[in-house]
């Protein structure tokens, strides 16, 4: 077990299996809200299910409509339980996560892509701008 410090973006705490992606994600288009399945052209994640995972990826891209799709994933009970990105996510994604109560951490002090295997249990705790990711 190791605890990695990160910047806290959206408060909350969650635990779930890691799902680690190598590409940036657009919540508008890359993830099917009805199933939680990754349908976008993301080789490392294609056909995986984001539901219930701690979703780890480099950064968010694409439409300002992203908030709605993250919120819809939550409404359909298909949302990740937490999101960890390398760089700060788009304001729209942050707004969707606040509405849906999904904690977000970013800028972790260690390279999670090499530390964390898909499926490994990860805990994310975010409060007052600080985050701890336990793997």
């Amino acid at each position, binding site marked *: 077990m190791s605890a990695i410090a990160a910047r806290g973006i*959206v408060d909350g705490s969650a635990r779930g299996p890691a799902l680690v992606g190598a590409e940036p994600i657009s919540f508008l*288009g890359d993830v*099917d809200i009805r199933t939680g399945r990754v349908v976008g052209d993301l080789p490392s994640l294609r056909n995986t299910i984001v539901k219930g995972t701690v979703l780890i990826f480099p950064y968010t891209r694409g439409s300002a409509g992203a908030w709605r799709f993250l919120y819809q994933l939550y409404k359909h009970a298909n949302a990740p339980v937490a999101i960890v990105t390398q760089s700060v996510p*788009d*304001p729209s*994604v942050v707004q969707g996560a606040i509405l849906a109560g999904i904690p977000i951490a970013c800028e972790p002090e260690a390279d999670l892509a090499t530390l964390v295997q898909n499926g490994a249990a990860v805990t994310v705790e975010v409060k007052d*701008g600080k985050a701890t990711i336990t793997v």
Partner: protein
Amino acid sequence: MRLTRDEQEMLAGTRGEAQRRSMEGLVQLGEAFGAEDMVEIGYAHVHPGMALYSQDVELMEDLVKIGAKVVVPTSANVMNVDTENWKLIGTPENLARLHMRGVRAHSALGAVSAMTCTPYWAGHWPSWNMHMTSIESGVTVFCNSVLGARSNRDGFFSVYAALTGRYPRFGYHLDENRVGTHLVRVEADLANITDYSCLGYHLGKIVGTDVPVFSGLPHKPTLDELDALGAGLATTGGVSMFIVPGTTPPITSIDQAFAGRKPREELVVRQADIDAVYSSFGNTPAGGAVDFVHLGCPHASFQEMQDYGKLFAGKHKAEGVELWITTSRAVKALAEQEGIVKLLREAGAKIITDTCPMSCHFARTTSPDDDIKLPPPPMSTMVVDSAKQAKYVRDMIQCDTLLTGTKEAVATALTGRFVPRAP
């Protein structure tokens, strides 16, 4: 965050639940991005409520229930239904009725039901240096880059800003982020408005969320060309602002655009890059059959409506082709007054407001409540004159999608056969 007394009162709930909820969300957002305080906004472009998404119109109705009222001029974005002409385009009645509830919610909030992605053509626009918020990334780009206002690419919280008149000071509200990153030298001809949308579409993939600065444009861009450029940039990239020295207020030189620093990167765009955007769409060859033609993405300006009128005057679309022209309610009213709507209808066009092909019930990637029985999209091959519409039609409606210039799209509508952009 440092909050004024007014803002603290809103947060404490002494001014009602709507301002409390809004301020709580805005403070969370501000803390996420390290904002020190709030700015006062002068304009907000907000979520209309989208009937194609479960419980989404209800987000706006919930605000009405807790007594919310906007405190700054507020316009609503494009939505899923033309609430006037819904029967004409085959919208299921329950979807149309749900959207009418959304429109009523906006009236109750005190917002204007502009229902457009180009509120600036409809009379809603900020001044230079005005802080504002926008749920539509195309509006963010236009207002930052052409009008000199200050806006981020927001989501739902744009309505929280409208209800409080406040927004956290971060991103493009700060001078330090309104500085060029990439110097783009344009060597392409840019012979029509669609070329500008391709220029943006090509560059968005390269510059991501950065700020491109343009040099070498063939002339001072027109309003419609600037609109198309911004929409293209916001489609493939996360661009919030571009700079054309001499056009973007208050920047008059390349040096000023980079605040005296060196560009991080220099790029050249050639005609081949523009051509490659056109040819990246669709499988139907020149002369192949087409059953749907769309003009007006982003929602047409009055000038564009006039252009369409000239191209269609005295002519009629081919049989078997569905022809849509999309614009805002306000621009349609002006075009009606000038006889343009009548002329375009006589040519066989449907003049649609409030929505567009990629935003309406044609999209396959939505998730409506189960009792809205959506018919499958009626088209198999669609021609558009906007790189933004082309991308989203391809990905969301999932039909063969072809991109061409406006004149060529009109020629396609008149013949029912695909006319590629003339070289």
